[in-house]
Protein backbone atom coordinates (compact mmCIF):
# COMPACT_ATOMS: atom_id res chain seq x y z
CA UNK A 1 0.00 0.00 0.00
CA UNK A 2 0.93 3.64 -0.40
CA UNK A 3 0.01 6.60 1.76
CA UNK A 4 0.28 9.84 -0.12
CA UNK A 5 -0.69 13.42 0.52
CA UNK A 6 -2.85 14.55 -2.33
CA UNK A 7 -5.16 17.39 -3.16
CA UNK A 8 -8.64 16.42 -4.16
CA UNK A 9 -11.62 18.35 -5.33
CA UNK A 10 -13.94 19.06 -2.43
CA UNK A 11 -17.05 21.12 -2.07
CA UNK A 12 -16.77 23.67 0.70
CA UNK A 13 -19.81 24.86 2.60
CA UNK A 14 -19.34 28.33 4.08
CA UNK A 15 -21.80 28.60 6.93
CA UNK A 16 -22.92 31.88 8.38
CA UNK A 17 -25.34 30.60 10.96
CA UNK A 18 -25.08 28.27 13.94
CA UNK A 19 -28.64 27.03 13.39
CA UNK A 20 -28.10 23.55 11.98
CA UNK A 21 -31.70 23.18 10.78
CA UNK A 22 -31.48 26.41 8.83
CA UNK A 23 -28.19 25.41 7.25
CA UNK A 24 -29.52 22.00 6.27
CA UNK A 25 -32.76 23.26 4.77
CA UNK A 26 -30.94 25.85 2.64
CA UNK A 27 -28.46 23.23 1.55
CA UNK A 28 -31.28 20.86 0.65
CA UNK A 29 -32.65 23.39 -1.85
CA UNK A 30 -29.18 23.76 -3.33
CA UNK A 31 -28.77 20.01 -3.58
CA UNK A 32 -32.09 19.54 -5.36
CA UNK A 33 -30.87 21.78 -8.17
CA UNK A 34 -28.30 19.16 -9.15
CA UNK A 35 -29.01 16.01 -7.13
CA UNK A 36 -26.84 13.81 -9.38
CA UNK A 37 -23.85 16.02 -8.86
CA UNK A 38 -24.14 16.27 -5.11
CA UNK A 39 -25.02 12.63 -4.52
CA UNK A 40 -22.54 11.27 -1.97
CA UNK A 41 -20.19 14.16 -2.53
CA UNK A 42 -17.63 14.92 0.17
CA UNK A 43 -18.11 18.23 1.94
CA UNK A 44 -15.89 20.50 4.03
CA UNK A 45 -17.40 23.07 6.40
CA UNK A 46 -15.78 26.48 6.54
CA UNK A 47 -16.45 28.63 9.58
CA UNK A 48 -14.69 31.83 8.54
CA UNK A 49 -17.95 33.61 7.73
CA UNK A 50 -19.74 32.41 10.84
CA UNK A 51 -21.48 35.31 12.54
CA UNK A 52 -22.48 33.66 15.83
CA UNK A 53 -20.37 31.88 18.40
CA UNK A 54 -18.79 28.73 16.98
CA UNK A 55 -19.27 27.03 20.34
CA UNK A 56 -23.04 27.24 19.84
CA UNK A 57 -22.84 25.11 16.74
CA UNK A 58 -23.92 21.51 17.25
CA UNK A 59 -21.28 19.69 15.22
CA UNK A 60 -22.83 16.25 15.74
CA UNK A 61 -26.22 17.43 14.53
CA UNK A 62 -24.59 19.11 11.54
CA UNK A 63 -22.83 15.90 10.63
CA UNK A 64 -26.02 13.87 10.88
CA UNK A 65 -27.95 16.48 8.93
CA UNK A 66 -25.43 16.37 6.09
CA UNK A 67 -25.43 12.58 6.01
CA UNK A 68 -29.21 12.61 5.75
CA UNK A 69 -28.98 14.97 2.79
CA UNK A 70 -26.68 12.51 1.05
CA UNK A 71 -23.40 14.35 1.56
CA UNK A 72 -20.30 12.85 3.09
CA UNK A 73 -19.03 15.18 5.81
CA UNK A 74 -15.24 15.21 5.67
CA UNK A 75 -13.90 17.94 7.90
CA UNK A 76 -14.10 21.49 9.11
CA UNK A 77 -11.80 24.47 8.83
CA UNK A 78 -11.50 28.06 9.94
CA UNK A 79 -13.15 27.52 13.28
CA UNK A 80 -11.71 29.06 16.46
CA UNK A 81 -9.39 26.79 18.40
CA UNK A 82 -11.74 26.84 21.35
CA UNK A 83 -14.16 24.74 19.32
CA UNK A 84 -11.58 22.06 18.49
CA UNK A 85 -12.57 19.85 21.37
CA UNK A 86 -16.22 19.91 20.36
CA UNK A 87 -15.28 19.28 16.75
CA UNK A 88 -13.13 16.27 17.54
CA UNK A 89 -15.70 14.86 19.95
CA UNK A 90 -18.27 14.78 17.16
CA UNK A 91 -15.93 12.92 14.83
CA UNK A 92 -14.97 15.66 12.38
CA UNK A 93 -11.50 16.08 10.94
CA UNK A 94 -9.92 19.48 11.43
CA UNK A 95 -8.51 20.65 8.13
CA UNK A 96 -5.77 23.16 7.75
CA UNK A 97 -7.12 26.61 6.99
CA UNK A 98 -6.18 27.93 3.62
CA UNK A 99 -6.22 31.34 2.08
CA UNK A 100 -9.36 32.46 0.35
CA UNK A 101 -9.24 31.54 -3.32
CA UNK A 102 -8.20 34.43 -5.50
CA UNK A 103 -10.57 35.57 -8.19
CA UNK A 104 -7.94 35.95 -10.88
CA UNK A 105 -8.44 34.08 -14.11
CA UNK A 106 -6.80 30.71 -14.15
CA UNK A 107 -5.23 29.66 -17.42
CA UNK A 108 -4.70 26.03 -16.47
CA UNK A 109 -6.99 23.48 -17.99
CA UNK A 110 -7.84 22.03 -14.62
CA UNK A 111 -11.12 23.01 -13.01
CA UNK A 112 -11.06 25.23 -9.97
CA UNK A 113 -10.37 23.02 -7.01
CA UNK A 114 -12.92 24.53 -4.77
CA UNK A 115 -16.54 25.34 -5.12
CA UNK A 116 -18.14 27.59 -2.60
CA UNK A 117 -21.70 26.68 -1.86
CA UNK A 118 -23.36 29.59 -0.15
CA UNK A 119 -25.58 28.10 2.46
CA UNK A 120 -27.18 31.32 3.54
CA UNK A 121 -29.96 32.44 1.26
CA UNK A 122 -28.55 35.91 0.89
CA UNK A 123 -29.03 35.95 -2.85
CA UNK A 124 -32.75 36.47 -2.35
CA UNK A 125 -32.73 40.19 -2.94
CA UNK A 126 -29.66 40.49 -5.09
CA UNK A 127 -29.74 40.86 -8.84
CA UNK A 128 -29.51 37.46 -10.57
CA UNK A 129 -26.87 38.85 -12.92
CA UNK A 130 -24.43 39.04 -10.04
CA UNK A 131 -24.51 35.26 -9.77
CA UNK A 132 -21.90 35.00 -12.48
CA UNK A 133 -19.44 36.88 -10.31
CA UNK A 134 -17.11 34.44 -8.68
CA UNK A 135 -16.73 32.47 -11.85
CA UNK A 136 -13.00 32.29 -11.85
CA UNK A 137 -11.82 29.76 -14.34
CA UNK A 138 -12.55 28.05 -17.60
CA UNK A 139 -12.22 24.34 -18.08
CA UNK A 140 -10.66 23.03 -21.27
CA UNK A 141 -11.23 19.46 -22.43
CA UNK A 142 -9.00 18.41 -25.31
CA UNK A 143 -9.79 14.69 -25.53
CA UNK A 144 -12.97 13.09 -26.83
CA UNK A 145 -15.69 12.79 -24.20
CA UNK A 146 -16.68 9.15 -24.50
CA UNK A 147 -19.97 7.40 -23.90
CA UNK A 148 -20.49 7.02 -20.16
CA UNK A 149 -18.14 9.83 -19.23
CA UNK A 150 -19.40 12.79 -17.26
CA UNK A 151 -17.54 16.07 -17.02
CA UNK A 152 -18.60 18.98 -14.88
CA UNK A 153 -17.07 22.45 -14.87
CA UNK A 154 -18.03 23.81 -11.49
CA UNK A 155 -18.46 27.56 -11.38
CA UNK A 156 -16.88 27.87 -14.79
CA UNK A 157 -17.31 27.81 -18.54
CA UNK A 158 -16.27 24.73 -20.47
CA UNK A 159 -14.54 24.45 -23.81
CA UNK A 160 -14.36 21.07 -25.53
CA UNK A 161 -11.91 20.77 -28.41
CA UNK A 162 -12.87 17.21 -29.35
CA UNK A 163 -16.07 15.35 -30.15
CA UNK A 164 -18.49 14.30 -27.43
CA UNK A 165 -20.08 10.89 -27.93
CA UNK A 166 -23.64 9.71 -27.64
CA UNK A 167 -24.14 8.65 -24.04
CA UNK A 168 -21.72 11.21 -22.63
CA UNK A 169 -22.67 14.13 -20.44
CA UNK A 170 -21.00 17.52 -20.14
CA UNK A 171 -22.15 20.10 -17.62
CA UNK A 172 -20.98 23.55 -16.68
CA UNK A 173 -22.23 26.27 -14.39
CA UNK A 174 -21.39 28.70 -17.16
CA UNK A 175 -21.51 28.44 -20.94
CA UNK A 176 -20.25 25.51 -23.00
CA UNK A 177 -18.34 25.63 -26.27
CA UNK A 178 -17.86 22.46 -28.30
CA UNK A 179 -15.58 22.48 -31.32
CA UNK A 180 -15.93 18.80 -32.20
CA UNK A 181 -19.24 17.13 -32.97
CA UNK A 182 -21.71 17.45 -30.08
CA UNK A 183 -23.43 14.08 -29.74
CA UNK A 184 -24.02 13.55 -26.05
CA UNK A 185 -25.98 15.46 -23.47
CA UNK A 186 -25.01 19.02 -22.76
CA UNK A 187 -26.16 21.03 -19.74
CA UNK A 188 -25.13 24.68 -19.40
CA UNK A 189 -25.98 26.88 -16.44
CA UNK A 190 -26.22 23.78 -14.28
CA UNK A 191 -26.68 25.85 -11.11
CA UNK A 192 -29.39 27.95 -12.63
CA UNK A 193 -27.55 30.62 -14.59
CA UNK A 194 -30.09 31.54 -17.27
CA UNK A 195 -27.56 33.59 -19.21
CA UNK A 196 -25.41 30.55 -19.96
CA UNK A 197 -25.30 29.51 -23.60
CA UNK A 198 -24.22 26.52 -25.65
CA UNK A 199 -22.09 26.97 -28.76
CA UNK A 200 -21.23 24.07 -31.03
CA UNK A 201 -19.80 23.28 -34.44
CA UNK A 202 -22.08 20.36 -35.18
CA UNK A 203 -25.34 20.09 -33.30
CA UNK A 204 -26.24 16.42 -32.85
CA UNK A 205 -26.84 16.50 -29.09
CA UNK A 206 -29.10 13.91 -27.51
CA UNK A 207 -30.29 16.48 -25.04
CA UNK A 208 -29.58 20.17 -24.50
CA UNK A 209 -30.34 22.04 -21.29
CA UNK A 210 -29.82 25.54 -19.97
CA UNK A 211 -30.60 26.33 -16.34
CA UNK A 212 -32.75 23.23 -16.01
CA UNK A 213 -34.86 23.77 -19.16
CA UNK A 214 -34.14 20.86 -21.40
CA UNK A 215 -35.06 19.53 -24.78
CA UNK A 216 -34.39 16.28 -26.56
CA UNK A 217 -32.79 16.37 -29.98
CA UNK A 218 -35.98 15.22 -31.68
CA UNK A 219 -37.95 18.00 -30.01
CA UNK A 220 -35.58 20.71 -31.13
CA UNK A 221 -37.39 22.93 -33.57
CA UNK A 222 -34.52 23.76 -35.88
CA UNK A 223 -33.04 23.08 -39.26
CA UNK A 224 -29.55 23.43 -37.80
CA UNK A 225 -29.10 19.77 -36.89
CA UNK A 226 -25.55 18.77 -37.72
CA UNK A 227 -24.61 22.42 -38.29
CA UNK A 228 -22.88 25.11 -36.21
CA UNK A 229 -25.36 26.51 -33.72
CA UNK A 230 -25.84 28.54 -30.59
CA UNK A 231 -28.48 27.72 -28.01
CA UNK A 232 -29.76 30.26 -25.51
CA UNK A 233 -32.65 30.58 -23.14
CA UNK A 234 -35.39 33.09 -23.79
CA UNK A 235 -37.95 33.05 -21.02
CA UNK A 236 -38.75 29.36 -20.72
CA UNK A 237 -37.86 28.48 -24.26
CA UNK A 238 -34.61 27.22 -25.73
CA UNK A 239 -33.72 29.14 -28.88
CA UNK A 240 -31.41 27.60 -31.48
CA UNK A 241 -29.65 30.05 -33.76
CA UNK A 242 -27.09 29.67 -36.52
CA UNK A 243 -23.52 30.56 -35.63
Amino acid sequence: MQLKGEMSMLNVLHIQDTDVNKVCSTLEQKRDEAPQFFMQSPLVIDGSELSGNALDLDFSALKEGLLELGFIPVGVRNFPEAANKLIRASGWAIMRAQQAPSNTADTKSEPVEEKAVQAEAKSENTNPATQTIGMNSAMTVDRPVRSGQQIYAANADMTVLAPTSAGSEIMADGSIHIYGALRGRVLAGAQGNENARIYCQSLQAELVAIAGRYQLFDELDTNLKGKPAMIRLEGEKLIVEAL
Partner: protein
Amino acid sequence: MSKVIVVTSGKGGVGKTTSSAAFAAGLAAKGFKTAVIDFDVGLRNLDLIMGVERRVVYDFVNVINGEATLKQALIKDKRVDNLYILPASQTRDKDALNTEGVESVINELKEDGFDYIVCDSPAGIEKGAFMALYFADEAIVVTNPEVSSVRDSDRILGILQSRSKVAEEGGTVKEHLLITRYSPERVEGGDMLSMEDIQDILSIPLIGVIPESGSVLQASNSGNPVIMDKESQAGQAYTDVVARFLGEDVPLRFVNPEEKKGFFKKLFG
Protein backbone atom coordinates in the same frame (compact mmCIF):
# COMPACT_ATOMS: atom_id res chain seq x y z
CA MET B 1 11.57 -2.23 -24.39
CA SER B 2 8.54 -4.44 -24.08
CA LYS B 3 5.09 -3.18 -24.86
CA VAL B 4 1.77 -4.23 -23.40
CA ILE B 5 -1.12 -4.17 -25.87
CA VAL B 6 -4.71 -4.80 -24.85
CA VAL B 7 -7.19 -6.10 -27.38
CA THR B 8 -10.55 -4.91 -26.16
CA SER B 9 -14.03 -3.89 -27.35
CA GLY B 10 -16.64 -3.64 -24.61
CA LYS B 11 -19.05 -5.76 -26.60
CA GLY B 12 -18.80 -9.52 -26.84
CA GLY B 13 -18.49 -11.60 -29.97
CA VAL B 14 -16.85 -8.95 -32.11
CA GLY B 15 -13.59 -10.84 -32.62
CA LYS B 16 -11.31 -9.92 -29.72
CA THR B 17 -9.88 -13.40 -29.25
CA THR B 18 -9.58 -14.06 -32.99
CA SER B 19 -7.78 -10.75 -33.36
CA SER B 20 -5.54 -11.34 -30.32
CA ALA B 21 -4.50 -14.73 -31.67
CA ALA B 22 -3.87 -13.41 -35.19
CA PHE B 23 -2.08 -10.29 -34.02
CA ALA B 24 0.18 -12.12 -31.57
CA ALA B 25 1.00 -14.82 -34.14
CA GLY B 26 1.75 -12.11 -36.69
CA LEU B 27 4.13 -10.28 -34.35
CA ALA B 28 5.88 -13.53 -33.48
CA ALA B 29 6.21 -14.44 -37.17
CA LYS B 30 8.00 -11.13 -37.65
CA GLY B 31 10.57 -12.31 -35.13
CA PHE B 32 9.34 -10.62 -31.97
CA LYS B 33 9.09 -12.60 -28.78
CA THR B 34 5.39 -12.38 -28.04
CA ALA B 35 3.13 -13.59 -25.25
CA VAL B 36 -0.64 -13.57 -25.46
CA ILE B 37 -2.59 -13.68 -22.20
CA ASP B 38 -6.22 -14.77 -21.92
CA PHE B 39 -7.95 -12.53 -19.35
CA ASP B 40 -11.32 -14.19 -19.84
CA VAL B 41 -11.13 -16.22 -16.63
CA GLY B 42 -13.96 -18.73 -16.49
CA LEU B 43 -14.71 -18.53 -20.21
CA ARG B 44 -11.38 -19.65 -21.60
CA ASN B 45 -11.32 -19.49 -25.40
CA LEU B 46 -7.91 -18.33 -26.55
CA ASP B 47 -6.41 -21.81 -26.12
CA LEU B 48 -9.02 -23.20 -28.53
CA ILE B 49 -8.43 -20.56 -31.17
CA MET B 50 -4.70 -21.16 -30.83
CA GLY B 51 -5.17 -24.92 -30.93
CA VAL B 52 -3.39 -25.59 -27.63
CA GLU B 53 -6.36 -26.67 -25.51
CA ARG B 54 -4.90 -30.11 -24.88
CA ARG B 55 -1.64 -28.65 -23.63
CA VAL B 56 -3.02 -26.53 -20.77
CA VAL B 57 -1.65 -27.72 -17.43
CA TYR B 58 -1.32 -24.57 -15.37
CA ASP B 59 -3.00 -21.25 -16.06
CA PHE B 60 -2.86 -17.51 -15.42
CA VAL B 61 -4.64 -17.76 -12.07
CA ASN B 62 -2.29 -20.51 -10.89
CA VAL B 63 0.62 -18.17 -11.59
CA ILE B 64 -1.04 -15.24 -9.82
CA ASN B 65 -1.70 -17.43 -6.78
CA GLY B 66 1.85 -18.77 -6.79
CA GLU B 67 0.69 -22.34 -7.45
CA ALA B 68 2.83 -22.55 -10.57
CA THR B 69 5.69 -20.63 -12.09
CA LEU B 70 5.20 -18.55 -15.19
CA LYS B 71 7.47 -20.94 -17.10
CA GLN B 72 5.23 -23.88 -16.23
CA ALA B 73 2.09 -22.10 -17.36
CA LEU B 74 3.34 -20.55 -20.61
CA ILE B 75 2.59 -22.74 -23.62
CA LYS B 76 5.07 -22.46 -26.47
CA ASP B 77 3.44 -22.48 -29.86
CA LYS B 78 4.57 -25.31 -32.12
CA ARG B 79 3.98 -23.53 -35.42
CA VAL B 80 5.55 -20.12 -34.78
CA ASP B 81 8.77 -19.54 -32.88
CA ASN B 82 8.71 -16.78 -30.27
CA LEU B 83 4.98 -17.23 -29.61
CA TYR B 84 3.75 -18.12 -26.11
CA ILE B 85 0.25 -18.48 -24.76
CA LEU B 86 -0.82 -17.94 -21.17
CA PRO B 87 -4.27 -19.51 -20.85
CA ALA B 88 -7.02 -18.37 -18.49
CA SER B 89 -8.40 -20.57 -15.78
CA GLN B 90 -11.68 -22.24 -16.67
CA THR B 91 -12.67 -23.18 -13.13
CA ARG B 92 -12.42 -19.75 -11.54
CA ASP B 93 -14.07 -16.38 -12.05
CA LYS B 94 -12.80 -12.85 -12.67
CA ASP B 95 -12.38 -12.18 -8.95
CA ALA B 96 -9.32 -14.42 -9.07
CA LEU B 97 -7.53 -11.56 -10.84
CA ASN B 98 -5.97 -8.76 -8.86
CA THR B 99 -3.81 -5.79 -9.79
CA GLU B 100 -0.71 -6.95 -7.91
CA GLY B 101 -0.88 -10.45 -9.39
CA VAL B 102 -1.40 -9.26 -12.95
CA GLU B 103 1.37 -6.71 -12.55
CA SER B 104 3.83 -9.30 -11.30
CA VAL B 105 3.06 -11.62 -14.24
CA ILE B 106 3.47 -8.78 -16.75
CA ASN B 107 6.69 -7.63 -15.13
CA GLU B 108 8.08 -11.14 -15.18
CA LEU B 109 7.28 -11.41 -18.90
CA LYS B 110 9.05 -8.11 -19.47
CA GLU B 111 12.10 -9.35 -17.57
CA ASP B 112 12.10 -12.53 -19.63
CA GLY B 113 12.69 -10.40 -22.70
CA PHE B 114 9.26 -10.47 -24.29
CA ASP B 115 8.91 -7.71 -26.89
CA TYR B 116 5.13 -7.71 -26.93
CA ILE B 117 2.58 -8.79 -24.35
CA VAL B 118 -0.88 -9.04 -25.89
CA CYS B 119 -3.76 -9.01 -23.39
CA ASP B 120 -6.94 -10.60 -24.72
CA SER B 121 -9.71 -8.82 -22.82
CA PRO B 122 -13.06 -10.35 -21.92
CA ALA B 123 -16.24 -8.51 -22.94
CA GLY B 124 -17.86 -6.04 -20.62
CA ILE B 125 -16.47 -3.27 -18.47
CA GLU B 126 -16.14 -5.27 -15.27
CA LYS B 127 -13.13 -6.57 -13.45
CA GLY B 128 -11.71 -8.86 -16.14
CA ALA B 129 -11.81 -6.18 -18.83
CA PHE B 130 -10.45 -3.63 -16.38
CA MET B 131 -7.54 -5.89 -15.40
CA ALA B 132 -6.73 -6.56 -19.06
CA LEU B 133 -6.48 -2.88 -19.91
CA TYR B 134 -4.95 -1.53 -16.69
CA PHE B 135 -1.32 -2.10 -17.63
CA ALA B 136 -1.67 -1.38 -21.35
CA ASP B 137 0.64 0.96 -23.25
CA GLU B 138 -1.41 0.61 -26.39
CA ALA B 139 -4.91 -0.60 -27.16
CA ILE B 140 -6.47 -2.25 -30.16
CA VAL B 141 -10.18 -1.55 -30.03
CA VAL B 142 -12.08 -4.16 -32.00
CA THR B 143 -15.34 -2.88 -33.45
CA ASN B 144 -17.99 -4.38 -35.72
CA PRO B 145 -19.78 -2.11 -38.19
CA GLU B 146 -22.95 -1.79 -36.15
CA VAL B 147 -24.13 0.88 -33.73
CA SER B 148 -24.10 -1.05 -30.47
CA SER B 149 -20.55 -2.26 -31.01
CA VAL B 150 -19.40 1.27 -31.83
CA ARG B 151 -21.01 2.69 -28.72
CA ASP B 152 -19.45 0.01 -26.50
CA SER B 153 -16.06 0.70 -28.04
CA ASP B 154 -16.57 4.36 -27.29
CA ARG B 155 -17.30 3.48 -23.68
CA ILE B 156 -14.21 1.31 -23.34
CA LEU B 157 -12.08 4.11 -24.85
CA GLY B 158 -13.31 6.40 -22.11
CA ILE B 159 -12.36 3.86 -19.45
CA LEU B 160 -9.00 3.30 -21.08
CA GLN B 161 -8.12 6.99 -20.98
CA SER B 162 -9.29 7.54 -17.44
CA ARG B 163 -8.69 4.38 -15.45
CA SER B 164 -5.65 2.66 -16.93
CA LYS B 165 -2.31 2.96 -15.17
CA VAL B 166 -0.84 5.11 -17.93
CA ALA B 167 -3.84 7.46 -17.70
CA GLU B 168 -3.64 7.61 -13.91
CA GLU B 169 -0.04 8.73 -14.27
CA GLY B 170 -1.11 11.50 -16.63
CA GLY B 171 -0.23 9.80 -19.94
CA THR B 172 -2.31 8.52 -22.82
CA VAL B 173 -2.78 4.97 -24.02
CA LYS B 174 -2.12 4.81 -27.76
CA GLU B 175 -5.36 3.82 -29.49
CA HIS B 176 -5.87 1.77 -32.65
CA LEU B 177 -9.20 1.03 -34.27
CA LEU B 178 -9.62 -2.42 -35.77
CA ILE B 179 -12.85 -2.98 -37.68
CA THR B 180 -13.77 -6.63 -38.06
CA ARG B 181 -16.50 -8.54 -39.88
CA TYR B 182 -16.64 -5.80 -42.50
CA SER B 183 -18.70 -6.47 -45.56
CA PRO B 184 -18.21 -3.81 -48.27
CA GLU B 185 -21.25 -5.07 -50.19
CA ARG B 186 -23.54 -4.58 -47.20
CA VAL B 187 -22.03 -1.17 -46.52
CA GLU B 188 -22.82 -0.17 -50.07
CA GLY B 189 -26.32 -1.51 -49.65
CA GLY B 190 -26.70 0.75 -46.61
CA ASP B 191 -27.36 -1.91 -43.99
CA MET B 192 -23.95 -1.69 -42.33
CA LEU B 193 -21.99 1.26 -40.96
CA SER B 194 -19.13 2.29 -43.20
CA MET B 195 -15.57 2.51 -41.90
CA GLU B 196 -15.76 6.29 -42.37
CA ASP B 197 -18.85 6.46 -40.14
CA ILE B 198 -17.13 4.44 -37.43
CA GLN B 199 -13.99 6.56 -37.58
CA ASP B 200 -16.09 9.69 -37.45
CA ILE B 201 -17.77 8.55 -34.23
CA LEU B 202 -14.72 7.12 -32.47
CA SER B 203 -12.13 9.53 -33.88
CA ILE B 204 -9.13 7.27 -33.34
CA PRO B 205 -6.63 6.11 -35.98
CA LEU B 206 -7.59 3.06 -38.01
CA ILE B 207 -5.14 0.17 -37.95
CA GLY B 208 -7.05 -2.17 -40.20
CA VAL B 209 -10.28 -3.53 -41.60
CA ILE B 210 -10.86 -7.28 -41.54
CA PRO B 211 -13.45 -8.46 -44.08
CA GLU B 212 -16.22 -10.83 -43.07
CA SER B 213 -14.91 -14.20 -44.14
CA GLY B 214 -15.77 -17.84 -43.72
CA SER B 215 -12.10 -18.58 -43.24
CA VAL B 216 -12.20 -16.96 -39.78
CA LEU B 217 -14.69 -19.52 -38.49
CA GLN B 218 -12.84 -22.31 -40.23
CA ALA B 219 -9.55 -21.18 -38.69
CA SER B 220 -11.08 -20.91 -35.20
CA ASN B 221 -12.57 -24.37 -35.41
CA SER B 222 -9.31 -25.90 -36.54
CA GLY B 223 -7.28 -24.04 -33.92
CA ASN B 224 -5.10 -22.12 -36.34
CA PRO B 225 -4.86 -18.34 -36.02
CA VAL B 226 -6.44 -17.01 -39.21
CA ILE B 227 -3.32 -14.98 -40.02
CA MET B 228 -1.62 -18.27 -40.90
CA ASP B 229 -4.11 -18.78 -43.70
CA LYS B 230 -2.25 -16.78 -46.34
CA GLU B 231 -4.92 -17.53 -48.93
CA SER B 232 -7.79 -15.94 -47.10
CA GLN B 233 -8.61 -12.24 -47.25
CA ALA B 234 -9.00 -12.07 -43.47
CA GLY B 235 -5.55 -13.61 -43.01
CA GLN B 236 -4.00 -11.12 -45.39
CA ALA B 237 -5.82 -8.23 -43.74
CA TYR B 238 -4.41 -9.28 -40.35
CA THR B 239 -0.92 -9.44 -41.87
CA ASP B 240 -1.43 -5.83 -42.97
CA VAL B 241 -2.55 -4.88 -39.45
CA VAL B 242 0.66 -6.26 -37.97
CA ALA B 243 2.73 -4.41 -40.58
CA ARG B 244 0.95 -1.13 -39.85
CA PHE B 245 1.41 -1.67 -36.14
CA LEU B 246 5.14 -2.01 -36.75
CA GLY B 247 5.16 1.29 -38.60
CA GLU B 248 4.88 0.21 -42.22
CA ASP B 249 2.68 2.15 -44.59
CA VAL B 250 0.32 -0.40 -46.08
CA PRO B 251 -2.81 0.56 -48.04
CA LEU B 252 -6.19 -0.83 -46.96
CA ARG B 253 -7.42 -3.88 -48.85
CA PHE B 254 -10.79 -5.59 -49.18
CA VAL B 255 -12.75 -2.46 -48.26
CA ASN B 256 -14.48 -1.99 -51.61
CA PRO B 257 -17.13 -4.28 -53.05
CA GLU B 258 -15.72 -6.86 -55.39
CA GLU B 259 -16.37 -5.89 -58.96
CA LYS B 260 -18.85 -8.10 -60.69
CA LYS B 261 -17.17 -8.89 -63.94
CA GLY B 262 -19.46 -8.41 -66.88
CA PHE B 263 -19.27 -10.39 -70.06
CA PHE B 264 -17.06 -7.89 -71.87
CA LYS B 265 -14.79 -7.43 -68.90
CA LYS B 266 -14.30 -11.17 -68.77
CA LEU B 267 -13.42 -11.16 -72.43
CA PHE B 268 -11.11 -8.18 -72.44
CA GLY B 269 -9.84 -8.29 -68.83
